């Protein structure tokens, strides 16, 4: 299946290679570099490339390319999913997945890769299993005797992330107040499918540590209103080569909770040279190389709505952009799952001690875009 793996940084240097079968020369990556040149963004590199003798399947994570070399037919998703699992494992082990982190822990990385694949076929990919075989470099994880469900709902999708530190073989069941809201779900393998099908109850024996118990999608009938509204006007004037920008954000349906970590990102058209703006709240930055305007607002104050206005200076002689840029909005609302999903109870069987239970609801903007 997976023949070799190359880790490549954003400069195009191969800084780690691992072969599970015979050694394949790293020159095979040249085909990849060629494709990388062609693509404007690293994200635009096709994940699957064909070369005369090999197939290259790659993922882009944390400014690194994980490039695997394949020789024969294999489901591409199989490889992609696996590579992401490798990246997740690094993240889990080292708290990050950058070149420096990997280089610093190259031996552990190598051992992990050795365990994760045998002859190119996945062997152990579950983080708790791996940790039994290969110790993470430092255990700085907070050991809390708790199961926390973070319900992150972005518009209509969410995940339940669990952090379980329970000894023995606890058998947990989690039930929801309103499981009917859930339209589509996918589970960690520990969840018993049948039980969910019949009773809408999550029954599982959890692995240790952090894991994603479930991801879900809320059916579109139950679409909850978006928590903020945006009033914006961006205009460019032909004469004088300048433009105006005015953005105001206000709360809409926040159920009395505070909107936090509010942030607006605007990809400006190429012609915009600089921005001269005033923010009534928070700070803004404009990076003229990437044409990225970032307005970091912070907490949303319903009394005094944050506003950003001012002028944009444009390159002269260039025709005005015909399309206004869209706004990307990030936000977070603590203690609220905008989907309305609520955990009703969590029971433990199979062990006699009393666990500490806690649930945390968070609403985050996923890909919240305002077309202007």
């Amino acid at each position: 299946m997976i023949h070799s793996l190359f880790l490549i940084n954003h400069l195009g240097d191969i800084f780690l290679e691992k072969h599970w079968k015979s050694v394949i020369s790293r020159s095979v990556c040249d085909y990849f570099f060629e494709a990388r040149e062609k693509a404007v963004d690293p994200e635009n590199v096709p994940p699957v490339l064909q070369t005369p003798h090999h197939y290259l399947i790659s993922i882009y994570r944390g400014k690194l390319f994980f490039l695997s070399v394949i020789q024969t037919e294999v489901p591409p998703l199989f490889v992609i999913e696996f590579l992401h699992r490798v990246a997740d494992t690094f993240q889990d082990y080292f708290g990050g997945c950058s070149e420096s982190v990997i280089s610093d822990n190259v031996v552990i990385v190598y051992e992990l890769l050795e365990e994760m694949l045998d002859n190119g076929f996945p062997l152990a990919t579950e983080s708790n299993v791996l940790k039994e075989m290969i110790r993470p470099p430092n255990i700085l994880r907070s050991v809390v005797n708790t199961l926390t469900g973070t319900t992150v709902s972005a518009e209509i999708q969410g995940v339940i992330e669990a952090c379980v530190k329970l000894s023995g073989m606890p058998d947990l069941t989690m039930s929801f107040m309103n499981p009917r809201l859930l339209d589509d779900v996918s589970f960690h393998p520990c969840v018993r499918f049948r039980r969910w099908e019949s009773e809408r109850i999550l029954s599982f024996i959890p692995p240790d540590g952090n894991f994603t118990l479930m991801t879900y999608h809320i059916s579109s009938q139950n679409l909850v209103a978006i928590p903020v509204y945006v009033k914006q006007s961006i205009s460019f004037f032909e004469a004088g080569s300048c433009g105006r920008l005015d953005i105001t954000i206000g709360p809409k349906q926040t159920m009395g909770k505070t909107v936090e970590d509010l942030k607006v990102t605007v990809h400006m058209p190429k012609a915009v040279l600089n921005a001269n703006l005033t923010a009534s709240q928070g700070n803004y930055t404009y990076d003229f190389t990437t044409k990225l305007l970032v307005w970091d607002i912070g907490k949303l104050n319903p009394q005094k709505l944050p506003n950003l206005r001012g002028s944009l200076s444009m390159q002269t002689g260039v025709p005005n952009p015909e399309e206004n840029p869209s706004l990307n909005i990030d936000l977070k609302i603590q203690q609220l799952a905008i989907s309305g999903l609520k955990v009703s109870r969590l029971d433990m069987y199979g062990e006699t001690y009393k666990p500490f239970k806690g649930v945390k609801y968070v609403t985050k903007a996923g890909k919240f875009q305002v077309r202007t």
Partner: protein
Amino acid sequence: MTAMQKLLQLPVNAVNMVKTVQSQVQGQEEDKSPVLTPDSGQQAWYSALQPDELRHLRSGGTGGGGGGGGDQEERAPLEEGGGGGGFQTQPLRHDDLKEMLDSNKDSLKLEAMKRIVAMIARGKNASDLFPAVVKNVACKNIEVKKLVYVYLVRYAEEQQDLALLSISTFQRGLKDPNQLIRASALRVLSSIRVTIIVPIMMLAIKEAASDMSPYVRKTAAHAIPKLYSLDPEQKDQLIEVIEKLLADKTTLVAGSVVMAFEEVCPERIDLIHKNYRKLCNLLIDVEEWGQVVIINMLTRYARTQFLNPNINESLLEEGGSGDKTFYGSDEDEDEDEEEKEKKAEAAAMAKRKPYVMDPDHRLLLRNTKPLLQSRNAAVVMAVAQLYFHLAPKAEVGVIAKALVRLLRSHSEVQYVVLQNVATMSIKRRGMFEPYLKSFYIRSTDPTQIKVLKLEVLTNLANETNISTILREFQTYIKSMDKDFVAATIQAIGRCATNISEVRDTCLNGLVQLLSNRDELVVAESVVVIKKLLQMQPEKHSDIIKHMAKLTDNIQVPMARASILWLIGEYCEHVPKIAPDVLRKMAKSFTNEEDIVKLQIINLAAKLYLTNSKQTKLLTQYVLNLAKYDQNYDIRDRARFIRQLIVPTEKSGALSKYAKKLFLALKPAPILESPFKDRDHFQLGSLSHLLNAKAGGYQELPDWPEAAPDPSVRNVEVKESVPEWTKCSSREKRKEKKVEKPFYTDSEGESGPTESADSESDSASGSESSSGSEESGSGSESEESKEASESEEEEEEEEEEQKKKKKKDLKKPVQESESEQSSEEEERKHQRKSKPRKSESESESDEDEESESESSQSESEDSESEAEVKKKKKVQTRTAEPKPPPKPLKKESKKEKKEMSLLDLDDFEPAPSPQVTPVNTFLSNSLVTDLEGLSLSDSVLSPATIAPSSTLKSYELLHRITGEGLSVEYCFSRQPFSPDANMVAVQMQFTNNASSDTKNLHIEDVKLQSGMRVKEFPEIELLPAGETATAVMGIDFCDSTQAANFQLCTHTRKFFVSIQPPVGELMRPVFLTENEFKKEQGQLMGMNEITEKLTLDVKCRNEHAIVQRVTTAANLSRVPCGSDKECRFAGRTVTSGSLVLVTVATKEEGAAQLTVNCEKMVIGTMLVKDILQALTQ
């Protein structure tokens, strides 16, 4: 270059300094090492270091070990080309590493290995260290060993001779008591790719394939493709191993062996037959990656074995929907029973339709469906493609939601999924229509994703949604991503060709785009308009004129070429403009791109043919220019066209047809999806994605015309098996072994029918049973304690029991969850028991019924249908209804028991005196019981031994797994003094290790509820080579459930379990002949089991019979007047229920065995055990 880097160019210095720093960190001891002695020069270097550089070095030397070392490696070779210093230091540095490897300190070795591994990771050559490294293969330190393995696997291929030095170590490892060591030895041995050891590998794989540890067997499965790639000649032998491992029933092995199968012998589909049902049933518990491989393989398998479910679309509509409701019951577990029955009827109706889905086909669809909920995108995709290729049209829709879910994953996942959705959406547009909005494009999507989403949107477009889609497209056209805009314009063009209603709208929109500022947009529009115009050119001459004007502005070659082609093609519509365009083009000819030049030549030729007056000279001019063009293609074209259009004496007959050639009506291009017909590749495959056959791709076969014989999947070799028999599972094999003697000859037909029947259901059944178990009570604790494997087995077995029972009951049993209905059931049961005769006649009906039953949620019923079976045979038909056991539901159970007892009272003369929950546990544990029996089968070897003198001992812990400690146990058959209700288990501990074992004791006892254990007193010390015995007591609650516990020493813990043969659950009692007869009289009906048998040749005398019976069960002999009869009596240990055994002998070894026991399960099992003892 910083000072730091400079420093690092001098690896000796650097390494030494690293060590220096490290030695300071690690302590004085290391300073003494010769390697570490820094020379004075370096010392100076070191002292000159800045603090932050120091920190860097330290991190290199200690924590990040390899990391720092690696940095040096990386930079050093960079310098090799330039400075000579680097080259000289290379061997030196390696000497350093060699010395570290040769030292006797593990820490040094580890450090060296870490650096070497870091070198390998960076792709640097470390092969010259091979001899030094290979020596450490036997190193005791596990960390070092691991890294040495890494090194070996990387370099053994290059240094085959030296690699052989390591082989003996691995061979030793293969015999290690620790399964992990065995596995890792096999892993490395099979990974080192040294051809000469192929025979050794082969042997090792074969051995590991029958290893008792599933993990080692899994490793063996992994090793198969490795050996195969090393030496394809071994194929035949490897197939044998694959065949063996395919029969393995553990989930751990399943995925790996199927992977090996796919790599070595994917064409041997026949190997799958016998394992098909098992694989289907195991699937949900296999690890994710194995699931993908198995599902993909089974898709192919199903394509060869079953009929196309969509073979007859019209019939399918009805049949399919019937099917759907029928099987829909899996999902809607909460539906009430009546409705289900109706559905079952509907299903029966559907059955009569010409197309009948093979139950195995259905089994596959049903068992894969829950995996659509997997978190693993590859698994979801695998199931999706399976449904796409195999499911009836009406059912394929379920995959859409799951695939749409994957669109929220990483962009690479989206990329692959969208490719597949694009293919699917052509064939099954309706499936994705509800999710139209999920394919809307975000400005932040990578371009390749955008383009794929466009593709899907275009495929989904139809008359009803086109306006929405076009509106969406309009926004896209404004995007800053021009490639994407171009793709959008293409998409609009396709919508326009496919949906005639919007053609004009689209065309107008595109024409508007011609005035767009962006040239790329205009160019793309031109190309698309050209294609659209070809459909109705006469209507749009004004557009053509408009486009002709664009030649002045548009520079994009493809667009220019398109315009020129358009003008040439429709020059009659623009008679005035065309020559003028040619004039302009002739002027710029030399500066044009090749494709434009070709079109200019084309235009000239066409104009020459239609309007030679105005264009003759221009054409000549253009052709002359082309004649001297640099591109041979253009020169050729010019020559060819000149010959064709300019009539000369030489020109042949062709020039007469020039007009026909050039101005023939050309068909409008069909704008179709590049994904059309891609589904001949198996979806989700690499080949599908690339639209080209990848190496090793296995074609997805076409459906067969007629289904091959479905009976090949039957695990038992039986003829004339009804439908449901086909469904089976791995339990089959067990049955073959265990149950066959149980259902003897006369029942040959119905026996397998039932067992198969029950298993067909195991999938949905296990679901429903677990559902009811769990919903009924809040105590799943027991369940969770079970290993998932055994749990599953149990469920299946339970299912089996239920099915058998059902058969007997004939009528589908209604819901028995409520007590009332359970009562009802019993009444029915009673009614049934009288007119038994009719049953055999209606046997054939039963099959069909059992099928419909299978869809119902399982009703719980009494323990041992087997018993009922027996009854049928013996014709002693006083049916005593047994209470339905509710697994894990004690309280309600008791109530029920009482209810049934009430019933019993007016029916059965002698109700059992002890009504304890014990019974229910018994029934629960039937699986384990049966397992226990199979165990005792082996125990009851022909060599008969006096029961009380010699005791059969069982192994609790093998010397190897116990790391020197071996434990055997036997049932001493002595009363256990601390508690009379316990079975005494005598354990013998032998310490084979070289060191003492201390603190032997028991911990973490896991029992079925009701069971108890009295632990033996801790053995404080067991010196090496010594043996000790201890006695523990276990109250098995009259069940053959295993008692699981940990056997702990001062260092280790071993999971062990003791499972009693049923014969050990009783103690002998002394009865007189009269008492025996009296008791026996009270234990008639359901409590009596009679079996005919033929005695073993060696067992035809009284003495032998007594010996064998008492060996099999802890019973005492009852005096008897007749010499043709032997009688035995005992009481169960926990509840004290009487167990009476009679063996009546007849001529020629014929005999009849009668067991009377109020505990039917015990009785059944005991009959089986004694039968075995007497017939073998």
